[in-house]
Structures are given as C-alpha cells and as structure tokens.
C-alpha cells in the first residue's frame, strides 16, 4: 500500500549512548503525516529514548533526524524552535504547579510565541473545553485527578499547534479507571489527523487507534508494519513472544 501522505519525521541511523551504555543501535524510521505510530517493546529496549530523541530532549550520539524535510540534528539548528513544532506528553504529567490549569496551557503561547494574553486564553479555553476540563480552568494542578492532569497536559501540548505529538507512556501512572478518559482524548486527536508517536503498554488502544507499529528490543527496531499486520500476524520470534506475554 503506497501512501501518498507526506513524510513528517525521518530518522536515519540513530545511535544514542549514555556513557558506555549503547541504548539506540542504529534506528531507521519514517513517520508520515497523520500516522499514529505505536512503539512497543520490553523495558530497556530504547523506546523512550527514541521518543525523546525526536524532540531532542536526548541529543543523538550519531545519526540524523528530519522534521518535514529539514534536518533538526544539524549544526546550526535552534532546538528551541524545533521543540515548538513537536509536542510531548509525559508519564508523570509534569504540569507546572505554580500556575493555574489555564496558565499551564497558555504559558508557552504568551512567552514563546509572544501571543497576546487574550488570544492565548481564548485558545487555551477552547482546548481545555475540547478535553472536557472547561470547569477546571482556574484550578491548580494539585486539585486534579491523574486523568484530568494528563488531559491538561495534552491540551498544553496542543496549544502550540504542533506538527506531531509524542506520548511517553502517558497512561502508565494512572489508576485503571482513569485511563479511558485519556485514551478517548487521544483517540479523538488521532481521528483529527494529528501525527502521533505513542510509547505505550495499552495494546487495546494500540490495536484500535494505531496505524503503524514498531517493536523495539535492545536498541533496534526488530519489526515494523501496519498495526493490523503486527498484531494479527507478527513475524519475528521476539515480537511473537512479547505480544503473547503482553496480550495474555
């Protein structure tokens, strides 16, 4: 199936070492606009490191990353500008406790994009309404449940109108009954055409919403393909073993 969608992210021969620890051993990947790429694999396989390399929270030891055709790992590229274009949602929410919920969503709009406060607040209220938290806009993060915090975090990432959003195990720290509300927001986001890279253990979500899957182990992509193919018909023995263990 040849996709005519444009290429959003290209990763070429990405290596990452932490001291002597070789975590990413040559990753190659293409993500097209609108793809929902699910990254699965055992702990320590490099999934998070790969995700965090895309927005340069981790700087590659070697290799190249391209965003919409431009190399973001180039010498003179301003990484702050790159990060405006890629959003990220974290396992531990990382909301800013010293601001209101609305403040969390608008801070980057006013301070980074230099938007006027009124416009920023309008955008913020819109997004918070979209994720179902309109009544919490003047509350503080410590008054929210985990699921609410994560929805605020998603709104915060969306506020910057990013070209892609990275999700790093965003439901792993949630109580089970709060997971659905977050996955529902992510589902809507995917439907609206957002390019998403999702590291997750939520296989149900992956099957339902993911378009493509990569299985990582020990710093390499062992298998990749369409979500339906990987889940229904994994080829690599380690992929089979992992899925068997996880889906049982």
């Amino acid at each position, binding site marked *: 199936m040849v996709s005519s969608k444009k290429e959003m992210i290209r990763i070429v021969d990405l290596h990452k070492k932490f001291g002597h620890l070789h975590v990413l051993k040559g990753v190659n990947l293409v993500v097209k606009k609108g793809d929902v790429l699910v990254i699965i694999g055992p702990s320590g396989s490099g999934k998070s490191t790969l995700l965090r390399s895309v927005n340069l929270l981790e700087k590659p030891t070697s290799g190249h990353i391209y965003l919409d055709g431009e190399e973001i790992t180039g010498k003179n590229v301003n990484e702050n500008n790159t990060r405006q274009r890629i959003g990220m949602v974290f396992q531990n929410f990382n909301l800013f406790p010293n601001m209101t919920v609305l403040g969390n969503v608008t801070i*980057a709009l006013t301070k980074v994009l230099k938007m006027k406060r009124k416009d920023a607040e309008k955008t913020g209220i819109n997004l918070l309404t979209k994720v179902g938290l309109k009544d919490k806009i003047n509350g503080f993060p410590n008054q929210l449940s985990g699921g609410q915090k994560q929805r605020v975090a998603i709104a915060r990432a969306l506020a910057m109108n990013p070209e892609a959003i990275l999700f790093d195990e965003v439901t792993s720290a949630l109580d089970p009954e709060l997971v659905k509300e977050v996955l529902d927001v992510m589902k809507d986001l995917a439907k609206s055409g957002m390019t998403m890279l999702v590291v997750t253990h939520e296989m149900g979500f992956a099957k339902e919403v993911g378009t493509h899957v990569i299985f990582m182990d020990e710093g390499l992509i062992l298998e990749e393909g369409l979500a339906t193919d990987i889940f229904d018909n994994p080829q690599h023995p380690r992929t089979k073993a992992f899925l068997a263990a996880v889906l049982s």
Partner: protein
Amino acid sequence: MQGLIDLADKYFNFPIMREVFPFLLKGALWTIIFSASSEIIGIIFGLTTAVIRVTKIKVLSQIAVIYVDLFRGTPLLMQIIFVYYALPYVGINLPAPIAGIVALSINSGAYVSEIFRAGIESIDKGQLEAARSLGMSYMQALRYVIIPQTMKRVLPPLTNEFVALIKDSSLLSVIAISELMRTAKELMTWKMNPSSLTAAAILYLLITIPLTRLVSYLENKMKRSEI
C-alpha cells in the same frame, strides 16, 4: 557559692543592664539595618550567581565558582578588613558603614547562591523537560517554571542564613561601626562591667529566635503541602 554571686554581679547585673538598655537598643537597630540591607543585596547577588552557574555560561560560571569558593572559604572578618583597609590602596575609599554592607553582601551572596543552586537542582527534572518541550529556552524555563517553584523551597535555608548574617554582623564592630556588638563593648568599658554583653546577647536572641521559629513554621507548612 561566692562564684555564683560574683557571676551575677559581673555578668547579670540588672541595674546596669536596665541603664544601658536604651543604648543597646540603638545598636540593635543598626544591626538590623545592616543585616537586612546586606541580606537583600546578597539575595540579588546570590540568585544571579546561581543562575549563572546553573546555565553554565562559559567564562561567567567559572568566575561564579571562584567567587563562591573564595567568600565561603575565607573568614568574614578577613573580608571586612580587606574591604575597609585594603581597597583604599586602589582608590576605593568606602566609609565604614558602606564597607560593612559591601562585605556582608558579598559574603551573604556566596552562601545564598549555593542555597538557590541547591533549590533549582532539587526541582524535578520533568519540570524542565516539560518547559523545554514546549519550546522554552533554558532561561525561559528557569524564569517561568523553575525559579518560581524554588522560591518557596529556599525560604527555610535563606532564613537560617539570615540568622547567621545577623550574628556575623557583630564582626563589623572591628571597623568602628556602632552596631549592637560594638555598642555593648563600649558600654562594658564605660560601666566597667560585662553585663552589657549579657544584655546584648538577650537582644540578639530577641531578634534571632522569632526568625528560627519562622523557619520551623515554614518547614512544617511545606511538609504538609506538597511543594
């Protein structure tokens, strides 16, 4: 027994203490003025230095390290003497009170900078990552996310440092500044009796004890909320 009577007469002589009290109060006022102004300036120096160290700006952060090591590693008494007696040789003639505030501020700044640096580094890394992933520069992240959160955390150690500064301000007595310590010493000579020292000690306690109680209160308050 006779020893105790002598002690009471020499060091706890209440009539004398009552007599010298108004003078000591004036000295205490100066102690507070010198300490408070030096602390404020010290906080400005300290926060600036901490930010420089944390952002690791090439030459400046190395200077910052030297500054902190130098002024935490040498006696304040030496620093005061240098500022007042040595600087005139290179044309900087500071009147004693100014020299006193300069020395106290620079010294305080060195300690405060470490307090802020520890505070900044104690903020969860995820806060910085979230800020940067929104496109903020390191400076913007510090300014809007990290340092505001640091402020609450540094209040207890900053208050402790202020108490230390108040006691250290007694060293200004060596450059003829009439703060509490010097006033007490002069009164001792005048009255030929060391009870002025005791009275001065009580005044120091009256200043420092509320502050140390404040520290405990702040620490408890912070333990209860999750900052």
